[in-house]
């Protein structure tokens, strides 16, 4: 129960933060980091696939309140991210800035692929290739892993002890 509450708080806090202009200070060109993706990667890595996918689903649903993108698409994308990254639980022993960056790098790739699959199925998602891969997603592959280290450290410091 306590774990669920803490994860819910993390999702709400970072979800709201993600939609404010505050995140613009971290923006490169048109691209801002995906803080919720980093939270999902953290939860999936720490708590496994079940927690990861549920966190992903909840985080995706939250984002739909701020975006007119096809309802359910973010929920789908982040559920997949949470499930796949959950497979890394207990398989990666070392936890440092590099492992967190690699995890979030992989999470960003999975997010891109999942969006690509949806773009093939639903016209509302829009054309996926090539303009987005060359633009937004490539920059996200840089900016998300850079922020992964500090955010993992913060969540380890403040949220993880209460989750045990």
């Amino acid at each position, binding site marked *: 129960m306590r774990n669920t509450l803490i994860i819910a708080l993390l999702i709400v806090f970072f979800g709201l933060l993600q939609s404010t202009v*505050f995140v613009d200070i971290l923006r490169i060109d048109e691209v801002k980091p995906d803080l919720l993706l980093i939270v999902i990667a953290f939860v999936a890595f720490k708590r496994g696939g079940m927690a990861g996918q549920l966190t992903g689903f909840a985080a995706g649903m939250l984002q739909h309140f701020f975006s007119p993108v096809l*309802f359910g698409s973010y929920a789908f994308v982040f*559920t997949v991210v949470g499930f796949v990254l959950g497979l890394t639980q207990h398989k990666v022993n070392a936890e440092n800035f590099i492992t967190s960056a690699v995890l979030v790098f992989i999470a960003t790739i999975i997010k891109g692929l999942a969006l690509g699959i949806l773009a093939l199925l639903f016209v509302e998602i829009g054309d996926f290739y090539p303009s987005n891969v060359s633009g937004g997603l490539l920059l996200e592959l840089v900016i998300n892993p850079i922020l992964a280290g500090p955010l993992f450290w913060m969540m380890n410091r403040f949220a993880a002890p209460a989750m045990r």
Partner: protein
Amino acid sequence: MLSVFFYKNRKVLAFLLLLIVSFTMMGTSSTSFTLNLKSIVLTIIYPFEYVINGIFNFFRSLWEGLGEIETLKKELLRTQARLKKYEELDSSIQTLQRRNAHLERLLDERKQVRYEHVLASIVGKDPQNYYQSFIIDKGSSDGVAERMPVIAYENGKIGIVGRVTMTTPFSALVTTIRGSRTWVGAILEASRYYGMVRGNGMSAHCLIEYVDVGAPAKNGDVVVTSGHSDIYPRGLSIGILTNVQRDKGQFFLKAEVAPTINFAKLENVYVVKKLPSPEIEKLEKEQKKL
């Protein structure tokens, strides 16, 4: 036996269930339930976004102020060396001048917006990088209503941003022209050929459709609103043509439109107080029923 199977595979089964739920939601995304729930959540989160925006603006002003103080210091040192009388130059003059210049620019912009409008600041943005929506700090209590067009001013040009798709008393949701379901009646400014501009989801560029393949369109041509949609006033800049393609055997050419407005840098917008005529709204509703 079955319960053991479910227990052993609960993770994968939960995963499949969540995917099915997501897909079902995508299939039924146009239900009014979704919009009503969104409206309630928007009302709840607006104060949070407003406060964050205020804090952010405060720190940004502070940061800019610090930078200005540094510049002023250098200027003052140079001035002291040349003329003693500028020793007591008040640094706030520079700040006031800057603020005044900003206000003059806004006033100048407002004069050029020919329509009755409401000036609004952006307080919330699309969580992902697709800039398909914004939350603004003006709502129904300021006269903002659904379907009102939203425009902005950039590099001396007025360009369309999108339209209001939801309102609460003190905020409103603006869906931009980059939104997948947004269609804008357009015309190529030079050749006067008509077309329809629509958002392309995740892409930074919009698409223009239904432009006759014989139109003398080329990259760099300006695309403006045609006024046919009855939402957007005629002659507003939408963007410029890029990636023009003509496929054999096709009636229409393919092209992208790079929007005039840079959505990533947008801070203020103008909500034009113009609503579609009731007759057209009635016709649209009747068409939907059919």
